[in-house]
């Protein structure tokens, strides 16, 4: 595989990751969001593996496999099981309507593009252009968390945001050192267990996973 072709494939994967990030914003069903999230993880994993192959960096394979296991199988499965077990209503409820969030999303992408401009100018890697996409994915994940009401959707947004971070690490520097990557993966796994526990706690205390119930703690006058 030539470097040029690898860069092109990586570009396509980056575009697909961006598309799934927008898809998460547009999706109205929780299962649909889970599928999109798994898909995003898959693109991320393939992209990492391709970069690892072209750059000859074997530790990227480890992180590709980690991504594949965690983001494509384990986390979506845990979430799926939770949604199923807790009988969460299958529709996503939004605070801001979908077209508006889309427009905000587009603005965020442009913003990320500008923000990463200095890095793009300095970088010599074949992946340099994808950093903007990575930051966009982070921002869009953030947007999902802000504009969707349910605990599950917030978690999906959070995990999409983490996907963006992994992608950023690959595109800016061909991945962080292995110690860090492993540590980050461990933290995400712990976080996954914690939110799993949380769902049960929220469920038992509020009888719903809708975050609008959780608005007691406000400043009162």
């Amino acid at each position, binding site marked *: 595989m030539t470097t040029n072709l690898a860069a092109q*494939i990586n570009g*396509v994967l*980056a*575009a697909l990751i961006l598309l799934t990030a927008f898809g998460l914003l547009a999706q109205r069903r929780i299962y649909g969001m889970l599928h999109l999230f798994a898909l995003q993880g898959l693109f991320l994993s393939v992209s990492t593996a391709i970069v690892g192959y072209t750059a000859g960096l074997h530790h990227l394979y480890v992180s590709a496999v980690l991504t594949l296991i965690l983001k494509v199988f384990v986390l979506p499965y845990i979430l799926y099981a939770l949604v199923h077990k807790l009988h969460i209503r299958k529709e996503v409820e939004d605070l801001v309507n979908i077209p508006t969030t889309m427009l905000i999303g587009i603005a965020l992408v442009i913003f990320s593009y500008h923000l990463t401009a200095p890095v793009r100018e300095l970088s010599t890697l074949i992946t340099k252009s994808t950093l903007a*996409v990575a930051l966009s994915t982070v921002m869009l994940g953030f947007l999902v968390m802000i504009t969707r009401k349910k605990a599950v959707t917030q978690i999906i947004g959070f995990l999409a945001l983490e996907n963006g971070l992994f992608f950023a690490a690959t595109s800016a520097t061909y991945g962080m050192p292995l110690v860090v990557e492993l540590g980050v993966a461990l933290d995400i796994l712990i976080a996954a267990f914690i939110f799993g526990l949380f769902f049960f706690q929220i469920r038992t205390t509020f009888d719903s996973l809708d975050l609008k119930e959780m608005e007691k703690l406000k400043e009162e006058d």
Partner: protein
Amino acid sequence: MTTTLYSIIVEFVQIAVVLLAGPALAGWVRMLKCRMQGRTSAGVLQPYRDIMKLFVKDVVLAENASWIFRFTPYLVFGATVMAGAIIPVISTVLPSAPAADIIALVAIFAMARFFTALAGMDAGTAFGGMGSSREMTVATLAEPAMLMSVFTVSLVSGSTSLSQMAQVVTTNPLMLRPSLAFALLAFILIAVAETGRIPVDNPATHLELTMLHEAMTLEYSGRHLALIEWAKMIKLFLYAALGVALFFPWGIAGATPLWMLPAAVFYLAVKMAIVGAVIVLIETPLAKMRIFRVTEFLGMAFLFATIGMLSYFMLE
């Protein structure tokens, strides 16, 4: 001198192709659809027969219809044929090509739509007005998305001239371009909305309440209706041809040699046959969506077009 003559010949051939192939594509789509749904079809030539029949019938005009109502069919037909002269359907060497670029093309379609909407309201019936308002709703959303989508292509080719765009794509080495893929996706969605196909509109509907485009032309009859129907078929053909010219222009005729022209016509026929099949494949399993969902559908198209444009800047 010879090149000028050649290009004039090309222009005439192309207009002839556009005029004739429009109903043929419509007939082909209808036939395939019948087959898919297990009905017997009337054949590819049925649209021609329909048009012929309409031409010999009398025109019935509403009492309070003004000149706009009578003028509109000619204008719509003229605008559509003019669009057919601009789009590089069989060749990139068109004398009208330097005069009008993609923005002019969108404007020509917009003009046709504007007059159709006016005519819809002119007769003063409730359905006409409703159709006009729906059509304009769709238009306000579809046009920016359309421009976004074609601008992405013009960014890649560095020009807004349609011929130039088709040429650049054919001559450059093949590359994986996510921007073009997104632009194509957006274009397909918009084309579906603009040509009034399922899932946005149902061209074969008889229910006035669900109509978009048909509602506006409900009052037309005779040769007026023939022109409008014909223009509509040509429009479908032109959108297909535009998509093909922008995203899959391989096989289109250049300046020379002369034998490329028949080859281009042949390629065009093949491509159109495929496009028709794709339309059928999309339309058969889908139902028309509720009118309220159309805004979201077009929002999606706009999003795809924008992602395409952004990924041109970010990734290429």
